[in-house]
């Protein structure tokens, strides 16, 4: 056991810190708002042009070839410096890794740099009105046509759909298939014909959601990701990492716990022993996630596959996020009601309340832990 970073890793951290401290924008309007979105995209361009947008990607796609450990370091520094939520997150954390794994060379060279720079914004096309937790019951379908496919059906709860240029998701391509079989992973242009996007205001008031209607939208063959009919397996590779370290990195929560600590120090007068214990508890739970991140990184480097353990992480941080915000709101007292501007605690609370629902609800995660880690019977 050696818990030191190397000199190179320390230097990497220092370089990231210097860039971020000098460049992170402050006081941006919300990401999911018409006025805020372009400003967040500008920040993504700045990050990419300086080589910090996707540090763990290969250099040819704008990355730095960084290891998972260096990525964890970058994330710590990003949130420590007060960096905003990543506008490109669906592209860089979900689609990007899937493209790197399943994409053709043509797809990779055509798409990855634009994803990383935020030149093309991508949203997910999974949930449907009748298919939420039970995603395999989806009914959207595609018909074979000359040179490609025509897509039909409705996708919903599409995060950032209003602002996105393209969508990735699953459509049934074999009408006789059931459940996980006969699905295909498509990359769809949202600005083309046969697509209609309707914004939906989320709990925090922003237009962060959309429902997307497909009525014969054309997708050329080159925008099928992976094999036709094998979409479920490609999609599982997309939703795998999002449940663990990568979509909500430990650095995000250690920075959040530090913000709470600063608030508690400011509000010493309302901080009784019970409140102090709550602050300490959250700080410990964030620190525990940081430690689990390092523990997991070593295991991956040793060739182990943490697999379903990503569900343990999502369960942990889903509740931690909410608990930190609730304690902060209690510290704010009467002022909590008005802390609704971007970056303030009420706004963050409403945003975080989505955690136990998206990306596999906490109930689905508990089923995964019970069945795949503990080995309990499915039926």
């Amino acid at each position, binding site marked *: *056991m*050696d*818990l*030191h*970073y*190397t000199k190179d*890793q320390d230097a990497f951290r220092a370089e990231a810190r210097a860039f971020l401290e000098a460049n992170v924008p402050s006081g941006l309007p919300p990401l999911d708002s018409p006025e805020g979105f372009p400003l967040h995209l500008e920040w993504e361009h700045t990050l990419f042009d300086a080589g910090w947008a996707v540090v763990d990607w290969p250099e040819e796609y704008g990355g730095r070839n960084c290891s998972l*450990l260096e990525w964890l370091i970058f994330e710590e520094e990003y949130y420590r410096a007060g960096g905003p939520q990543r506008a490109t997150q669906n592209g860089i954390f979900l689609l990007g890794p899937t493209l790197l794994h399943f994409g053709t060379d043509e797809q990779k060279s055509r798409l990855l740099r634009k994803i990383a720079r935020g030149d093309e914004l991508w949203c997910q096309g999974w949930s449907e009105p009748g298919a939420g937790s039970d995603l395999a019951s989806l009914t959207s379908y595609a018909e074979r046509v000359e040179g490609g496919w025509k897509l039909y059906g409705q996708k919903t709860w599409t995060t950032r759909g209003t602002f996105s240029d393209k969508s990735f998701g699953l459509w049934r391509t074999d009408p006789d298939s059931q459940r996980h079989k006969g699905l295909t992973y498509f990359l769809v242009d949202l600005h083309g014909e046969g697509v209609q996007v309707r914004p939906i205001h989320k709990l925090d008031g922003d237009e962060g959601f959309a429902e997307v209607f497909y009525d014969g939208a054309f997708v050329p063959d080159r925008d099928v990701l992976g094999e036709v009919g094998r979409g479920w397996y490609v999609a599982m590779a997309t939703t795998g990492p999002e449940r663990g370290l990568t979509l909500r990195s430990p650095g995000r929560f250690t920075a959040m716990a530090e913000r709470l*600590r600063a608030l*508690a*120090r400011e509000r*010493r007068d309302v*901080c009784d*022993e019970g409140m*102090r*214990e709550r*602050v*300490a*508890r959250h*700080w*410990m*739970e964030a*620190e*525990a*996630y940081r*430690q*689990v991140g*390092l*523990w997991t*990184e*070593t*295991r991956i480097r*040793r060739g182990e596959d943490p697999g379903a*353990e990503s569900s*343990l992480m999502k*369960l*942990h941080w889903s509740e931690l996020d909410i608990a930190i915000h609730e304690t902060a709101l209690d510290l704010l007292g009467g002022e909590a009601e008005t802390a609704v501007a971007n970056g303030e605690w009420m706004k963050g609370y409403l945003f975080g309340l989505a955690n136990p629902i998206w990306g596999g609800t906490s*109930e689905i*995660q*508990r*089923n995964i*832990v*019970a*069945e795949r*880690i*503990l*080995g*309990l*019977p*499915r*039926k």
Partner: protein
Amino acid sequence: MEFGFSEDQRLFQQTVADLLANECPHEAVAEAWKTESGQVPGLWEKLGELGILGATVPEASGGLGLDEVDLVLLLEESGRRACPEPIATVAGIAAPLLAEVGGDVATQWLPRIAAGEARVAVGLAGDRYVADAAAADLLLLQHGDELHALAPGDVRLEAKPSVDGARRIYDVTWTPTPASCIAAGTEGAAIARRAFDRGAWAAAAQLVGLASELLDMSVEYAKGRVQFGQPIGAFQAVKHHLANAKTRLEFARVPTYYASNSLAHDLPSRALDVSTAKALASDAAHLCFRTALQCHGAIAYTYEYPAHMWMKRVLVLERLHGDASWHRQRAARLLLDAPVPSDGATR
């Protein structure tokens, strides 16, 4: 960055696990409940032969010269088997304390600890009772900033009942004298603080082991017990109880390993890391105990089934060397009340 154990460390863990599986099955723990000593006959000697008792004794004194990172997995195994022998006290607290004090008392006792010939009891400032004091050859007791070494004949013991029937605990009445004092002043206080942190960490390691076993027992039971025509482990209500317990446990296990490293190198973050480990391990083990009882149903509410001995050890250790609340309060002092000495505020 290498946050994991070496093959040697895992091998030592496996050796201890095998020994305890053979020599300390739950029947032996149940037997220890009934005897005056609370010991498993012959086990102390076997642990001595294996080297675990002298694990943290310096090599020059006949020990293995290992540190907390080497020891944590062994303490976890002793918890997993609800081993009643005071490995944590002797190897976790007493040996490092004596090595830090040095001098005659260390020269005299460390080789005997390493040889498995000496049982040592420890009573620190926050401990209400002293465990295994009657069987001890040496008592290490804290008095303010002073540490004292006493022979059994120099103290008066009053036995107290424990909810954990394998524990033998005592009220110890004693008088500190200059002759019994082995460390004092700033140095004595610093050694006592480190000893306290080792105690809290060693309790956390055992709690992680106890909780792992309680969870494993519950999973096995839930797979085999059939009601309404299916194993109860197929019901989501049961699955989710067990999944919640598993989640908390893994987020306590890793901090317990992490704190081992902070103790081994006496890092500035030691107190905070130990408090993180002990608070999370106490809460996680408590949840695993409640979950185990609920998922087993009536059978675990009896003396006919071994789980009750694990549950009672949890009830003791979650409170020993500071309960979760105490450790959160100490962490709050460190996090919110600067400037505070970083190696831990005094009680």
